[in-house]
C-alpha cells in the first residue's frame, strides 16, 4: 500500500475546507472536480441520447425505400445535428467527464490544476450546447453535414441562420475544449502525487494528455476555419469563394487539419480507460505499459499527418495523396500495439468476466473492425470508391461506437460505483452489453455492404430496386436493438441509485489510487495525500513490490485548500499549491460568452459588445488576487 499513514488528519476540518457551499450558490460556484466531472458525464450523456434520438428518426426514414416521412430539409438537419452532437457534444465531453472525475483521484491530488478554469470549461460546454440546440427550437438547425463543406454552407447557398449556428457554436465549444485541455496538461505535469513519476501514471492520463496536447494544436484550426466561414457569410468576405480569389479546398484543409486529429482526440482517452480497466479484470498488470503509453503519443503525433486522406477524391496531385495514404497506413501500428498489449494482458492474466470486461472485449473487436475498414479506405484508388459511401458511415460508427461508446459504457459499469457508491447490476449489465454488441453489429456491419453496393451517404431516401433495401432494414433493426440496450442501461442506472448494493472502497479489486478512498470519495479526496512507489499502488503486496523501507511521511495539508505541486517528470514535491474556493466567475464568464455569441449570431452588435465587455470585466475580477502579498512574507507563515 502506498498510502502513508502519517499524522491522522482531522477529516472534519478538511471537510469544512473542501465542501462546496450548500444551496444555489454552491451549485453555480462549485469548482470541485468531482462535481464538474459528474456534470460533464450527465450533460454529455443527455446529448448522447439526443444524438441517438436523431439517429433513430433517421433510421426510421431509411428502413424502407421511397419513404417520405421526413422532408429533405428535416433529414439534412437531423444527420448534421446527429454528427455534431455525437462528435462534439458527446464523444469528447464524456471523456472529459471521466478524466475530470478520475484524474485527481488517480494521481493523488485534491483537484485539477485550475479548478475554476475547469468550471469555466464545463459551463462553456453547456452554454455552447444550449446555443447549438437553440437552433433546433427555431427550426434552423445546421444542415451542412458535420464537416460543413463550403461553398454549400456559404450565404449564397445556405441563407438561413443554420450554418451561423454551426460556425459560432463550434468556436464557442472550442473555447471550452481548449481551456479544458490546457488544464489537463498542466495537471498532468504539476499535480501528480509525490513519487508518481511519469512512468507510473495510469494509462488514462497518457491518453488524455495526448488528446489534450492534440487539442491545443488542432482546435485552433476549427476555430480559424469557422471564423473565416462566419466572416464570409456575414461580412461578404471571400476566403472560400472561387470567383473572388478564395478556394473551397481551403476549408477542407483547415477542417481536416482539425478533424482528423479530433477523431483521435475522442479515442485516446477512451483507450486509456480501457487500458486501466483491462488489467483489473485480467488480474495482472498491463502488458507493455511503456508501449501503450508511447502508442498514444505516437498516434497523437502521426494524427497530424494524415488529414488529406479525407480529400483523396478532390483531384489533388498523385504524389500528395500517396504520401498521405502511406501515413494513414502507418498510423495503424500504434493501434496494433495497443490491441496486442490488451490481448497479451488477457492471455497471461486470469480474466474475470464481469460486465466491464465484456465491454472491453467487445471494444477490442469493434476497434479492430473499425480500424481495418479505416485502413481499407487508406489506399487512394479504393478510397475513390469508398469515400462518401455508406462504407464510411460504417467506419465512423465502428470506430466511434467501438472505441468511444463501448469503453465509455464499460467505464460506467466500472467507475459509476465509485461515483454513486452503488453497484450496477451484473445481470442487467450483461444484457446491456449483449444488446449493444449485437445491435451495434447488426446496425453498422450492413453499412459496409450498403456502401459496397454503391449507396452514398447523406441521402434522405433511396429508390427501390437498387439492392439497398435489405441492408437498410437490418441496419434499422440493429439500431433499435442498440437503443434498447441504452435504455436498459438507464434503467439499471436509476435502479442502482436506490437499490444497488454498496460498493465499498474497492469493489473490483482495482490497483489505482481512486480505489483507496471511499465511494463516493470525500470532498477532499485524500485525507493524507498519498506517496506513490509503483504503477499499481494497491497491488504492491501482491506483486511483490511492497514498500521498501518507511518512505517519507507526508503532511496533511489542511491549511486551506491545498495540494502538492510536483516536478514535471519525477514528481518530487516542489511546492504547496493553494487551490481556489468556490467561485461565481466561471459561470458568469460563460454567460457573458453566451451573450456575445447570440449577439454575433443575430448581428446585434451592441449585444456582442456587451458580451465582450462582460468577459473582460469578469476576467479582471477573476484574476484580481484575493490574497495580496504586500510584504515579502505575508503570504503564508510557512513560506520560507
Amino acid at each position, binding site marked *: 500500500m502506498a498510502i502513508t499513514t502519517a499524522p491522522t488528519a482531522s477529516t472534519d476540518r478538511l471537510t469544512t475546507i473542501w465542501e462546496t457551499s450548500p444551496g444555489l450558490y454552491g451549485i453555480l460556484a462549485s469548482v470541485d472536480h468531482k462535481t464538474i466531472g459528474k456534470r460533464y458525464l450527465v450533460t454529455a450523456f443527455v446529448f448522447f441520447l439526443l444524438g441517438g434520438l436523431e439517429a433513430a428518426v433517421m433510421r426510421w426514414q431509411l428502413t424502407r425505400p421511397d419513404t417520405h416521412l421526413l422532408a429533405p430539409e428535416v433529414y439534412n438537419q437531423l444527420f448534421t445535428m446527429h454528427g455534431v452532437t455525437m462528435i462534439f457534444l458527446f464523444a469528447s465531453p464524456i471523456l472529459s467527464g471521466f478524466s475530470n472525475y478520475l484524474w485527481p483521484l488517480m494521481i493523488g491530488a485534491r483537484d485539477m*490544476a485550475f479548478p475554476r478554469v475547469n468550471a469555466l470549461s464545463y459551463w462553456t460546454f453547456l452554454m455552447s450546447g444550449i446555443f447549438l440546440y437553440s437552433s433546433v427550437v427555431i427550426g434552423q438547425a445546421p444542415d451542412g453535414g458535420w464537416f460543413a463543406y463550403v461553398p454549400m454552407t456559404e450565404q449564397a447557398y445556405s441563407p438561413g441562420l443554420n450554418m451561423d449556428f454551426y460556425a459560432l457554436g463550434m468556436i464557442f465549444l472550442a473555447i471550452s475544449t481548449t481551456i479544458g485541455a490546457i488544464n489537463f496538461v498542466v495537471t498532468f505535469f504539476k*499535480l501528480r502525487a509525490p513519487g508518481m513519476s511519469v512512468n507510473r501514471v495510469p494509462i488514462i492520463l497518457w491518453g488524455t494528455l495526448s488528446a489534450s496536447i492534440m487539442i491545443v494544436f488542432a482546435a485552433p484550426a476549427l476555430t480559424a476555419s469557422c471564423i473565416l466561414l462566419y466572416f464570409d457569410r456575414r461580412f461578404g*468576405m471571400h*476566403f472560400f469563394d472561387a470567383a473572388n480569389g478564395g478556394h473551397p*479546398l481551403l476549408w477542407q484543409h*483547415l477542417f481536416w487539419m482539425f478533424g482528423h486529429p479530433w477523431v483521435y482526440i475522442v479515442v485516446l482517452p477512451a483507450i486509456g480507460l480501457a487500458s486501466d480497466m483491462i488489467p483489473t479484470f485480467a488480474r495482472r498488470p498491463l502488458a507493455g505499459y511503456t508501449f501503450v503509453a508511447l502508442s498514444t503519443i505516437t498516434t497523437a503525433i502521426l494524427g497530424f499527418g494524415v488529414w488529406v486522406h479525407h480529400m483523396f477524391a478532390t483531384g489533388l496531385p498523385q504524389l500528395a495523396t500517396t504520401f498521405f495514404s502511406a501515413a494513414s497506413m502507418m498510423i495503424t501500428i500504434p493501434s496494433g500495439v495497443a490491441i496486442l498489449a490488451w490481448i497479451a494482458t488477457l492471455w497471461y492474466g486470469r480474466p474475470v468476466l464481469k460486465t466491464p470486461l465484456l465491454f472491453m472485449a467487445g471494444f477490442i473487436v469493434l476497434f479492430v473492425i473499425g480500424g481495418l475498414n479505416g485502413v481499407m479506405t487508406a489506399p487512394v484508388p479504393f478510397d475513390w470508391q469508398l469515400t462518401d459511401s455508406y462504407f464510411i458511415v460504417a467506419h465512423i460508427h465502428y470506430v466511434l461506437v467501438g472505441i468511444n461508446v463501448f469503453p465509455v459504457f464499460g467505464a460506467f459499469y466500472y467507475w459509476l460505483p465509485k461515483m454513486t457508491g452503488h453497484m450496477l447490476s451484473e445481470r442487467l449489465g450483461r444484457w446491456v452489453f449483449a444488446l449493444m454488441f449485437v445491435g451495434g453489429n447488426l446496425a453498422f456491419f450492413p453499412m459496409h455492404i450498403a456502401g459496397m453496393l454503391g449507396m452514398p451517404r447523406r441521402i434522405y431516401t433511396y429508390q427501390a430496386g437498387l439492392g439497398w433495401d435489405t441492408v437498410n432494414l437490418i441496419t434499422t433493426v440493429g439500431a433499435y436493438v442498440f437503443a434498447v440496450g441504452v435504455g436498459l442501461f438507464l434503467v439499471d442506472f436509476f435502479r442502482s441509485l436506490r437499490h444497488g448494493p454498496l460498493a465499498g472502497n474497492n469493489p473490483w479489486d482495482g490497483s489505482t489510487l481512486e480505489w483507496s478512498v471511499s465511494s463516493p470519495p470525500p470532498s477532499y479526496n485524500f485525507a493524507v495525500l498519498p506517496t506513490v512507489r509503483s504503477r499499481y499502488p494497491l497491488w504492491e503486496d501482491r506483486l511483490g513490490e511492497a514498500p521498501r523501507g518507511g518512505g517519507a*511521511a507526508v503532511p496533511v495539508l489542511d491549511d486551506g485548500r491545498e495540494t502538492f505541486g510536483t516536478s514535471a517528470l519525477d514528481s518530487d514535491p516542489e511546492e*504547496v*499549491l493553494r487551490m481556489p474556493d468556490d467561485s461565481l466567475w466561471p459561470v458568469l464568464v460563460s454567460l457573458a460568452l453566451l451573450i456575445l455569441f447570440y449577439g454575433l449570431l443575430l448581428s446585434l452588435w451592441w449585444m456582442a459588445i456587451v458580451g465582450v465587455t462582460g468577459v473582460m470585466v469578469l476576467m479582471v475580477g477573476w484574476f484580481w488576487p484575493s490574497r495580496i502579498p504586500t510584504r515579502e512574507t505575508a503570504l503564508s507563515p*510557512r513560506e520560507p
Partner: protein
Amino acid sequence: MAATALLDRLPVDRADARSPGRWGMVLLITTEASFFAYLLFSYFYLASMARGAWPPTGVPALQLALPNTVILIVSSGTMWWGEVGIRNGNQGRLRLGLLVTLVLGLTFLTIQGVEYSRKTFTPASSAYGSLFFTITGFHGAHVFAGLLMNVVIQVRAWLGHFTARRHLAVSNIALYWHFVDVVWIVVFASLYLTPRLG
C-alpha cells in the same frame, strides 16, 4: 517529524517559471500561435492557388508597417526592461516599463488604424483583402488584449502588489506581449516581405 520537515521545505505557491500559472500561459500561447499558423497557412494556400498577380492589389507598402514593426519590437524591450526591474524589486522600473509599453502599443494600434484607412481595398473586395484584414485584425485584437492586461497589471503595479519574488502575473503578461510581438514579426514577414521575394 518528517512530515513537518517536508512542509517547512516547501514553498507555498512558488509563483515562478515552474508554477502551474506559467505552464498555463505557455500553453495558451501555444494554442494561440497555432491559430495564427492556420491563418497564415490560409494566406499562403490562397496565394499559391491564385491565378494572376499576388497580391492582386500590389505589394503592400512599408512606409507605415516597417516603423510600426520597430515600435512593437521596442515595446517588447521596454516590457522586458520593466520585468527585470521587478525581478530586482525595483517597483519604479516596473511601473515605467509597463507605462512605456502601453504607450508604444497604443501607438502601434493607431498607426495600424491609419494604414487601414489608406488601403484601397476592403475585406469584402477580394480574398486578398479578406486575408489581409483578418490576419492583421486578429493580430491587432491580440495587441489590444495585451494592452488591457497591461492596464490591469499596471494598476496592480501602482498598488504595489508585486515583489521581487512574487510577480508571476507580470511575467506571464510579459510573455504574452513578447508572443504578440513575435507573431507580428511573422505576420509582417509573410504579408509584407514575402511578396517582394518573387
